[in-house]
C-alpha cells in the first residue's frame, strides 16, 4: 500500500483534487492522508510571541478546520476511510515538503486548475515544493473519470526510469494503459525521424512494460506541435510523464503539460 498526501485548502482546486484522490484510492491500494497549511504570512504579522502567538495560530486553525472539514465530509461517502486533515500553521510549501520528507510519502496530490495561459503552471513547476519533493506529484487540473491513462515519453531511457515509480503506485491496478511516443516541433515542420524508428521505440517500450507485468492497449507515436498532442490526450483520466527538474521554462514539454486539461502525474527523472 502506498502513502499519498493531498494538500487541501478551502477552494475549488482542492475540492477537485480530493474527489480525484478518493477515486484513485478506490482503484489502487492507497493510504490517503490530507493536510491543510494555514499560511500565516497571508493573514498578516503574528501579534506577538509565546502564548499570544499560539492563541492567534490556534484561532486561525479553527477557522480553517471548519471549511476543510466540509470538504472531507462531502467525500466520505465515496471514500469512508478518509480522516480529518493534519492542520498546520506556517509556510505552505515548507510545511508540505517537510511532511512529505518526514513521513516518506510515495505520492503527492494537489489541485491546480487548468488555465488559458501557462504562467500559473510554470510558477508551480518552478516552486520550491516541486523542485525538492522526492515523490511523484499528481496535478489535478480537472475532475475526470480514471478509466484510462497514458504514459508519454520521448526516449527509451526515460521510460525505463519511469517504470519503477509507476509500478510502485499502480502495481496491478485495473486501469487501461496506453503508450505515446512523442517528438515535438516548434512549427508545423515535422522532425525527420522515420516511422520505423518510432515503431521500434514503441515496441521496446511495450516490452519493458510487459516485463513489468503491464499490458498496454494502444501504442501510438506523435510528431508535431504541443497543442495538437494536448488535444489528442484529452480523453485520458491521467497523463503520466517523466519530468526533469532542469527543464528550461521555454521547453516544449512544459508548454505541452500546461495545455493538457487532464490530471498529470509527474515522475521526476
Amino acid at each position: 500500500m502506498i502513502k499519498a498526501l493531498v494538500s487541501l485548502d478551502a477552494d475549488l482546486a482542492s475540492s477537485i483534487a480530493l474527489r480525484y484522490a478518493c477515486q484513485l484510492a478506490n482503484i489502487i491500494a492507497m493510504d490517503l492522508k490530507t493536510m491543510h497549511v494555514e499560511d500565516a504570512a497571508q493573514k498578516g504579522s503574528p501579534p506577538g510571541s509565546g502564548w499570544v502567538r499560539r492563541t492567534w495560530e490556534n484561532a486561525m486553525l479553527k477557522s480553517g478546520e471548519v471549511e476543510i472539514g466540509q470538504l472531507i465530509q462531502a467525500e466520505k461517502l465515496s471514500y469512508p476511510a478518509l480522516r480529518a486533515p493534519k492542520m498546520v500553521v506556517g509556510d505552505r510549501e515548507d510545511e508540505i515538503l517537510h511532511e512529505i520528507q518526514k513521513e516518506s510519502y510515495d505520492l503527492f496530490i494537489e489541485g491546480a486548475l487548468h488555465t488559458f495561459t501557462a504562467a500559473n503552471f510554470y510558477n508551480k513547476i518552478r516552486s520550491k515544493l516541486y523542485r525538492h519533493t522526492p515523490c511523484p506529484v499528481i496535478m489535478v487540473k480537472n475532475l475526470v473519470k480514471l478509466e484510462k491513462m497514458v504514459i508519454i515519453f520521448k526516449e527509451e531511457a526515460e521510460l525505463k526510469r519511469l517504470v519503477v515509480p509507476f509500478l510502485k503506485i499502480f502495481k496491478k491496478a485495473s486501469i487501461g494503459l496506453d503508450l505515446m511516443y512523442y517528438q515535438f516541433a516548434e512549427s508545423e515542420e515535422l522532425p525527420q525521424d522515420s516511422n520505423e524508428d518510432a515503431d521500434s521505440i514503441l515496441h521496446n517500450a511495450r516490452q519493458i512494460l510487459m516485463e513489468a507485468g503491464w499490458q498496454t492497449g494502444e501504442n501510438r507515436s506523435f510528431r508535431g506541435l504541443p497543442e495538437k498532442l494536448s488535444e489528442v490526450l484529452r480523453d485520458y483520466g491521467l497523463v503520466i510523464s517523466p519530468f526533469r527538474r532542469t527543464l528550461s521554462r521555454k521547453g516544449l514539454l512544459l508548454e505541452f503539460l500546461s495545455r493538457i486539461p487532464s490530471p498529470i502525474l509527474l515522475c521526476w527523472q
Partner: protein
Amino acid sequence: MRILAAVDQYPYSVVAVEEVAKLALNTWADVTLIGVGPKLTSKRSRSGEFPAAQALDQSFKDAIRRYRENFLSYFQGEDSPYQQQRCGYEFIEVDKGRWEELYVCRGARKDLKVRIRQGKPAAQILAESYEEGVDLIVIGCDQALNCTWQGIDGIPQKIANNAACSVLIVKDAPKINRMVCCLDHDRVSQASLEMINQMVTLHHAELELVGVTTGEALRADVERKMDLITRYYSARNVKSWIKLVEIADLETFIKQEAQGSLVALWMGEKSILEKFFPMKKVVRLISASQSSVLILR
C-alpha cells in the same frame, strides 16, 4: 419553455428549424415559427384588412409551411406533443364516484404557432418575443456573409443585443464537439444551466466552464458556484472541464474557441461579463464566429 424561431427563405433557416426541433424533442417546448415579410404599400380593402392571399407572398408562405412540416417530422406518431387533436373513449368521473365512458377529443399538449409579421425584421422578432414572453429566440444566419439575415447586415446581432431572453444564433458549422460557457458563475440561473445541459446533450459535446479571473485566482464566491455547477453536471453525466481565463485574455480566448466550439456567454443584467466583454464585442463575436453562439440571460 417557449421558443421563438425566426425564419426566412434562406438555407440557414432550415438548420435553425432543425436545431429548434431537436431542442423541442428534449424539452417539449411551446414553439412559434415566425417569418417577417416586407410592409405592404398597396391599398387596404374597405374593411381595413388585407386578404392573406394578397398580403403575403405565396413563396414565403410556402417556405414557412415547409418549416412547420420539417419541424413536425421530428415528432412521429401519437406521442407528438404538437398533435392537434386526439379522440377516443375515456372513462370520465361525471359525478363523485360515478364514471362514464365518453368520447373525448383533446387538443395538443404543446403549442406550435406559425406566424408572419410585416415590418423591420429585428423589431418584429423582438416585438414577438416580448409579446409572447419567450425564453429563447433561435435565429440562423449566413456565415459566408458575416452573419447576415435576409441579406441584411446586423439583424441577429441586434436581436442578441436587445432581447430580454436568451438568444441562440445558429450557424451551419461542422459538428460541434465542445461547448464553451463563459458564465457569471456567481449569479448563474437554473434556467441557463438547463439550457446548457440541453445543448450539450443535443450535440453530444463536451462542456468547458470558463472561470474569468481578475488577478491569479477566482473570487471565492465564484469558486463555490463553479464547484456546485461541476457537481450538478457530474450528477447528470455531463463531462465538464474547468478552465481559468484572465479577464485581459478573454477576448483572445473566445475568438480562438469560436472557431470550433459553441460559445455561450452569460450576459444578464448583473453579469460581470457585461462589464468586461461589452455588447459591441459580442456583436463582433457573432459576426466572426464559425460556430453557433448562445447568449444566456
